[in-house]
């Protein structure tokens, strides 16, 4: 297990922030998640505390208590030294369908122009990469996915769209992701995923967790329509292909 220099900072009276080195790195994310699980078992139980992991940080929030920042900061430093990899929580690899039909992939041409790759090559690059979930936020179920191959990197659109469709799969520089609801957005849209990442009616509203991996596979327009209907009637389409420690 790697150890990193961590920094602990006050964040208002109800929150405290722990920061790892300022890098997008799988090993840093793993250390963050190990520490998060360790904290839930040691004095920071999930009845009182909400813990939000993202890239290189953990934010601990307790709305019921005014945090004594000095004491809590000392306690966290000690806990970081004592942390153990407990019964490791499994992370999952999810395979998600994307329809790259031009009806959905409205910016495929532009991405093609920018990257010099054909639309087929773009789809191949996007479906053969494995992306890591570095954070969930911005909107319910929005995943910050890292691991975009260099050949696919495309800047954000100069002018954001006022309405991006739910399920739209976007590309922006080193990030790719799925818009979980209709909203304004500035990413290049290359397809649409018919499986909702977030569903408030489910016992676990968001099946993806930070630390999971995502692979996309290409589906036809007809399969897309079928998946939309299947999702509406509640048929589970998720492919959780493998789990790993």
């Amino acid at each position: 297990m790697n150890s990193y220099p961590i920094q602990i900072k006050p964040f208002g009276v109800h929150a405290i922030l722990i920061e790892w080195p300022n890098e997008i790195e799988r090993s840093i994310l793993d250390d963050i998640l190990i520490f998060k699980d360790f904290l839930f078992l040691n004095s920071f139980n999930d009845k009182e505390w909400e813990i939000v992991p993202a890239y290189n940080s953990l934010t601990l929030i307790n709305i019921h208590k005014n945090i004594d920042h000095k004491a809590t900061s000392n306690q966290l430093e000690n806990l970081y030294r004592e942390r153990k990899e407990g019964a490791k929580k499994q992370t999952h690899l999810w395979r998600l369908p994307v329809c790259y039909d031009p009806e959905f992939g409205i910016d495929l041409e532009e991405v093609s122009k920018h990257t010099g790759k054909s639309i087929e090559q773009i789809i191949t690059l996007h479906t053969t990469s494995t992306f890591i979930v570095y954070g969930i936020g911005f909107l319910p179920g929005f995943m910050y996915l890292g691991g975009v191959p260099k050949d696919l990197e495309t800047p954000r659109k100069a002018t954001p769209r006022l309405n991006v469709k739910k399920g739209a799969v976007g590309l922006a520089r080193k990030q790719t992701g799925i818009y979980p609801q209709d909203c304004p957005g500035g990413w290049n849209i290359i397809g649409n995923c018919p499986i909702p990442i977030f569903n408030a009616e489910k016992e676990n509203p968001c099946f993806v967790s930070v630390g999971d991996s995502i692979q996309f596979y290409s589906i036809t327009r007809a399969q897309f329509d079928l998946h939309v209907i299947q999702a509406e009637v509640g048929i589970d389409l998720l492919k959780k292909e493998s789990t790993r420690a």
Partner: protein
Amino acid sequence: MLKVIKSGFFTTVQDQGRFGFRHMGVPVSGAMDQAAALLANAMLENDENDAVLEITMSGPLLEFEEETWIALSGANLSPQLNGKDIDNHSVHKVNAGDKLAFGKHIDGLRGYLAVKNGFQTPLVLNSRSFYSPITEINHLDSRMEVPYDEVADFEPKITHIKREDIDKFKTLNVSLGPEYEILSDAQKELIFNGSFTIAKENNRMAYQLEESIGEHTHIMLTSATLPGTVQVTPGGKLIILMRDGQTTGGYPRILQLSEKAIDILAQKTFGDSISFKLP
């Protein structure tokens, strides 16, 4: 049922918020001015977390189908019961068929209407607070109906509360945010020695401020944000996240509002001025 005859500008159901789902990107939501919502509930001896109506600026026209007791608090939006003026911060018996209307917006921005035992819209992820698409509805429209209990046997212990003028509060107490130190001395000086104007872009998600404190070039990885987090854009504009604010963000978090400061800001609107102060 409470029948919405006219919708008004923007009326929602809110409790104290939706907790435990931030790591999935779900905002906390809840009454913007929580102290005012708590006060309306307290006047009716309700639970703190009972759901109230949050009424923004211009109020709806409402009809009660069952008898109950109501309490009003927050902004004074000139409430009228069956055409007769009633006081803000007061408790009233309502009967089946009674109509509650609102008139001129006197002070503040958001008024609160509580009923005995709270409004009974569906609980979604442990909260009744409207936030689309977590809840089906984003705000009340005419012809909608809001469920509540019929209550006949209640004797209020308090019927009236005297409150200070809501508009006299202009100072927001803050603590330093995690990225405060990226600011130059001149920028720090501007933050604490100047006053700021609320921009047109203000809603339950965020309040933008008009003035710029000057550009910065700090780049950071996305990290958690909270209601009351003050972010600075690369161009130097300040954005204060509110109750429906996103759970993560990539702009430097330079200040964090106190709980009371969030309540104060929730009563401000376009053109109002505020200033920041360290306790």
